[in-house]
């Protein structure tokens, strides 16, 4: 689903042609799973290669993206926020207005349609904040799949409302009590479920990580974010933006926005969760504070100790609280195409308030990281510069977290 190359641009020059046949983005990506999953992963890859070129599949996806998800999502000029920042003008890509309130549904829908064609009857997913779990439970209800969502026991307490939402949608939410009881452990458990029920089960991974083809496939289902944005900004301003900013946990919303712009003269910024600050060790910034390793089926940057054991992470935003990152981001970091930086919990919460008060839009704490970064970048830029922030989700789910942090009892 990648855009065709510009006429005078050679294939070699494009940054949009990866991964290679075996799923590698430079030294990253690949397929690091136990043998029992290699067959199912190959089967999935073959099915995806077939249906991505299938007109009926693409038509059904396009139809549901429009009528069920509500695409295209608007590109909104945040005038009051921009004037407060006294610099570049800030646009918001409104993924928060999608059905279920985040970009996650683009991918969940795409994979569910694939699962249907592969004859699978059961969907499983992992979730951190609950947004991907809700998106998966939603498409399961939409198409009549059985649905099981794995969620860290710790996260289930932090995100009780999303747990109930998933149950209302008919999903079974299974608490994961192993390891650190958060997103990475939910992923472990989902992989164990998949290996045990490979015949009838489709594992909908929620981010651009995992064994090939997941990083590519999940990206492709989100590339519509950037493709729409490109058209929208060209028609609003007649030119490309100066910079794009998105938050990065696993990195699905960021790659979705960036990919259509990889070959353009546009600065790209990925913002990781700095937690209490990089120097404290309490963060979830695998690109900024980690090193390459192998986890969850791919080679990528990881937060690990000296012995190669995966470290516990911290972020106020459960959706960014993950010790790895998609392999394409690892590659984009190494080649210097995307600049990865961090925003702390405190800065993210300030940005949450700033947007809520200046524009009447309440952003998810994940997206607030990208916003905070835009608010730091904008004042140093010219007034005719344009920044586009991926507002990847809405903040209703985070009201409890913000209130607790500020000592308010609801």
């Amino acid at each position, binding site marked *: 689903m990648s855009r065709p190359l510009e006429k005078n641009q050679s294939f070699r020059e494009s940054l949009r042609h990866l991964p290679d046949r075996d799923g590698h983005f430079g030294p990253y990506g690949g397929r690091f799973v*136990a*043998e029992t999953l*290699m067959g199912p992963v190959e089967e999935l890859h073959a099915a995806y290669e077939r249906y991505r070129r299938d007109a009926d599949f693409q038509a059904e996806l396009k139809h549901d993206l429009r009528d069920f998800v509500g695409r295209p999502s608007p590109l909104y000029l945040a005038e009051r926020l921009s004037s407060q920042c006294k610099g570049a003008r800030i646009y918001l890509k409104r993924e928060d207005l999608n059905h279920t309130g985040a970009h996650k549904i683009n991918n969940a829908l795409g994979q569910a349609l694939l699962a249907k064609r592969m004859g699978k009857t059961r969907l499983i997913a992992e979730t951190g904040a609950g947004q991907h779990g809700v998106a998966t439970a939603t498409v399961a209800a939409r198409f009549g799949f059985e649905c099981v969502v794995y969620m860290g026991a710790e996260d289930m307490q932090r995100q009780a409302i999303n747990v109930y939402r998933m149950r209302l949608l008919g999903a079974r939410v299974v608490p994961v009590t192993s390891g650190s009881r958060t997103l990475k452990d939910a992923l472990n458990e989902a992989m164990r479920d998949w290996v045990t029920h490979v015949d009838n089960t489709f594992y909908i991974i929620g981010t651009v990580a995992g064994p090939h083809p997941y990083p590519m496939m999940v990206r492709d289902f989100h590339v519509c974010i950037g493709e729409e944005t490109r058209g929208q900004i060209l028609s609003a301003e007649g030119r490309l933006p100066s910079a794009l900013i998105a938050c990065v946990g696993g990195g699905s919303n960021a790659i979705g926005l960036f990919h259509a712009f990889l070959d353009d003269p546009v600065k790209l910024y990925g913002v990781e969760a700095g937690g209490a600050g990089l120097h404290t060790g309490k963060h979830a910034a695998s690109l900024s504070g980690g090193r390459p390793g192998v986890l969850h089926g791919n080679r990528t940057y990881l937060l*690990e100790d000296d012995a*190669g*054991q995966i470290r516990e992470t911290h972020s106020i935003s459960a959706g960014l609280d993950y010790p790895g990152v998609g392999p394409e981001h690892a590659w984009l970091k190494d080649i210097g195409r995307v600049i990865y930086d961090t925003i702390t919990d405190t800065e993210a919460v300030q940005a949450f308030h700033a947007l809520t008060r200046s524009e009447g839009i309440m952003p998810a704490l994940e997206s607030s990281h990208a916003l905070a970064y835009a608010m730091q970048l904008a004042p140093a830029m010219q007034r005719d510069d344009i920044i586009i922030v991926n507002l990847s989700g809405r903040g209703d789910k985070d009201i409890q977290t913000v209130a607790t942090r500020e000592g308010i009892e609801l």
Partner: protein
Amino acid sequence: MSRLAGVFSALKRNRRTALVPYITAGDPHKGATVPFMHTLVEAGADVLELGVPFSDPTADGPVIQQACERALKHGTTLGDVLGMVKEFRSRDARTPVVLMGYLNPLEAFGIGRFAEEVAMAGVDGILTVDMPPEEAEALAGLLRAKGLDCIFLLAPTTTAARLRRICEAASGFVYYVSLKGVTGAASLDVQAVRERFTAIRRETRLPVGVGFGVRDAGSAAQLAGFSDAVIVGSAIVSRIAEHRGELADTLANVREFVHSLRLAMDAV
């Protein structure tokens, strides 16, 4: 001839099946592992499989996950595991030892240094669960250069094309995962395993072992009827998990269980 090849050919001459028990290194504590290794050999083990603990063992069921957690709580590192093998070797030069684990701790250690030090410690083979042959070139090359065997998994989901490729890449023995699931899963279908064996035998002259889901003397004996090795992990580790108080009691408990497997397998 490698230690593994020597043991398997001796067993074949005597028409016996190898008993390969698995324990996680550092479980329940670092000092217990070497005594467990000797106990397993005394109880009838032909080859030892020693698990290198990892924080995220995605192919393992709850029993071995918890063993990893216990071992990591005591700070067991790959360096410690190599020290344990070295100590074991000072009293046992004969029994092959295979390390089983996940790739990330090996890479953190450095794969060049790893190949060097595992060979020096007296390890015979390496099974890296999350490293299929496609991704194994660099590490496998280093290990082979040191005379170590690279053991790969085969599964019920392995296609014919992959079966061929894996058998070409493997040495020492190949490990057939008897079921779709994680280690220690409940439902082992011996008849289905036997049928797959015919296909595997056609592709390789290496010994073929079976593991995952072997819970008791009965299932071990059934598999011993047609396989070259029976690998038993969770059923042993769950006995170690019961450890309280004296290590001698847990050693005795494990010895008795492994010996019962040996007797059942030899009666076939």
